[in-house]
């Protein structure tokens, strides 16, 4: 009986493979454009104060949220709205920086379509699309959420069931490459032509790493620069590590991801303007209120 119980316990414990090793720092990346920005870190595995920075690519924002709630991440990259929502609900991972400045584009043949397909009701793509349409009153298509993801919408475009849609990278570049009649109708990340974009992606960190903040900032900034300066290398790393399938990424898709690491302190204004828009359109998405001042703190 005891042996059976021991075997059962072994099986149950085997399910938890995220045990913390005191000599590692766990960086959780979301499968998608944000992981491109940190391709270099996946290969180099730098050491901070004797701790190896280990990256792990996670499939969905929900899984990253769960890992943050359970304290299974030291640094995590996730949508800004999820980061703020968690912070407002007591999961105190403050903002470290913003690595991406928008990957959302409105794609189609012309702006006369009566139906606009988009994904992620209540999330960034939905909110930023509604914000864009409110700014451009001349075109008011009906919003259709029947496709669950950008990938599904891109397949819809290829099969002809979708004419005009909101897509994120790398699906924007993939769709444009496969159909030359398609074009980018609008850049949803730039409310104004001279705007740096929306701080849609957040890097958050455990407060216990505060003393290494500058060092981490430097590493993250270098990794983002590497992706921008060496897109072929970044693509190779992504494909080798099966973060993206072969042929999914291109130089132009990396360019459209607008990768540029900005530390939290410098991104304060941009974060604030995005959160105000979200609060206006979908307050629940960030927990009903703006985060307090401790969410964005500057390095000493």
């Amino acid at each position, binding site marked *: 009986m005891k042996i059976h119980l021991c075997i059962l316990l072994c099986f149950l414990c085997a399910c938890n493979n995220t045990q913390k090793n005191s000599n590692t720092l766990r960086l959780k990346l979301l499968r998608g454009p944000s992981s491109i920005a940190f391709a270099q870190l996946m290969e180099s595995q730098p050491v901070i104060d004797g701790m190896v920075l280990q990256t792990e690519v996670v499939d969905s924002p929900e899984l990253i*949220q769960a890992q943050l709630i359970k304290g299974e991440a030291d640094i995590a990259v996730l949508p800004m709205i999820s980061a703020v929502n968690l912070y407002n*609900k*007591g999961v105190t991972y403050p903002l470290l920086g913003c690595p991406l400045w928008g990957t959302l584009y409105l794609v189609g043949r012309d702006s006369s379509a009566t139906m606009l397909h988009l994904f992620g*009701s209540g*999330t960034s793509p939905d909110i930023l699309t509604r914000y864009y349409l409110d700014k451009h009153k001349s075109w008011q298509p009906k919003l259709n959420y*029947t496709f*669950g993801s950008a990938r599904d919408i891109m397949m819809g475009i290829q099969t002809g069931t979708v004419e005009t849609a909101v897509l994120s990278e790398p699906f924007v570049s993939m769709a444009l490459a496969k159909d030359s009649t398609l074009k980018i109708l609008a850049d949803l990340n730039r409310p104004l032509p001279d705007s740096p974009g929306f701080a849609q992606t957040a890097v958050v960190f455990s407060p216990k790493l505060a003393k290494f903040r500058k060092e981490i900032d430097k590493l993250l900034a270098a990794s983002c620069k590497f992706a921008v300066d060496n897109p072929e290398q970044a693509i190779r790393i992504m494909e080798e590590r099966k973060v993206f399938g072969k042929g999914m990424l291109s130089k132009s898709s990396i360019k459209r991801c607008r990768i540029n690491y900005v530390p939290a302190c410098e991104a304060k204004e941009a974060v604030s303007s995005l959160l105000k828009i979200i609060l206006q359109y979908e307050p*629940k998405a960030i*927990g009903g209120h703006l985060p307090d001042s401790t969410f964005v703190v500057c390095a000493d």
Partner: protein
Amino acid sequence: MKKNIQMAFSIGIMFLAWEGLALMVNKPALVPGVPDLVVTLGSLILSANFYLSVLATLGRGIAGLILSGVLAMCTALLFARNENVYGLFKPLLTLMRSVPVISFILLALLFLQPEQIPFIIAFLTMFPLLSENLTKGLLHLRPELSVMGHVFQINRVNHFTQIVYPQLKPFLFSGLASAAGFGWRAIIMGEVLSQCPLGIGSEMKRAQNFIEVPELLAWTLIAVAISFVFDRGLDALSRISYPIRYKAEDNLHETQATQAIVLTKISHSYGKRSVLKDFSHQFEKGRIYGISAPSGWGKTTLLNIINGTLKPTAGKIERTDTHGIASVFQEPYLVNQITGLDNIALPLASFYTKEKANEIASHFCKLMELEEVAHHHPDTMSYGQQQRIAIARALAFPSSLLLMDEPFKGLDEPLAARIIQQIRKLHEINKQTIIFVSHQPDTLTLLADETIKL
């Protein structure tokens, strides 16, 4: 009452444990306390979206259940009639039952619109469960009860509600309960993954997207509550028993058998085994015939040929009757779901009002010395008591012909003698033609006007 207190106590303990956990974690946004949950539940119930979402999910569930039920009944009828077809489709049903629900959902996500997915998932989950249960139910129907219903010419409504439905009911409701349980969870899972605009699952997914744990838990409680109510509803439905439908007024038209029942060169064989060969006899109206022969010589076969449930392989039979034949079969053939008295009244329902039928049934119960067990169900009676209910049913039935196959089997001699005396008394009044089979020389002597040896 005690059960309700226990349930309330159990729910109370669960809520207390939850409240303790919430206090321990101390992150109300992620692990809300019971008061927070109640407030969230209240605000949900006050919103219009709540009703739209609940209706959408319920609509999908009920539509899926109805479609699955109708198609399962059709396939079960086909399977029960043809075992080869059942054999052909059984692996498919087993496969459908074994495939994880998530596989159906993932495949459906590729090919269907989000609104269609939960409904299709409901159907795919419920259909195999229902069709397998209903097929088993139909295959377990006791054919002898259908023979009894046919010989007594019990009308279709009573045949279904009193003979078929009670036998099918355990299989039907077990299938419905499993299908509803699995289907409900599958629909909600389908709604979560397909993210259709309305539905409990869609609301749960939205709450999860926004990390609104109290709302997610409130929707979970709502889903559990609806499932519980549905389960209770099915349970209540399964307890409903349909009463015997009687005539609004007595309408028995006196019918007489032909002057005689004439059998000419009747033969019957089961495959290569011949049990009756060139049997000829004229059974005169109003006489009592006893048939005697060693086992396996065709006594029961002869009665079945006379009552029309068997066709002779050769020969001719001349007999007319208009409304069934009073019969005591080789075994009692009683319906266990109704009382002994109702078993006697059931064939009478085609001719009489409830009062009259029950009056006749009570009278024959008394004649058979069964007053004490009249309101018991047959499966709680001894074999002898069941046999006497079967004799009472046959004697009460208004037919000019009475067939009895070893009617006094399982009765002690003095009791059998008293019943024979009652049958003879009745015969003096109604002048039925009685043909019975017996091994017992005493029975033949006491009851038969004429004994025929096969």
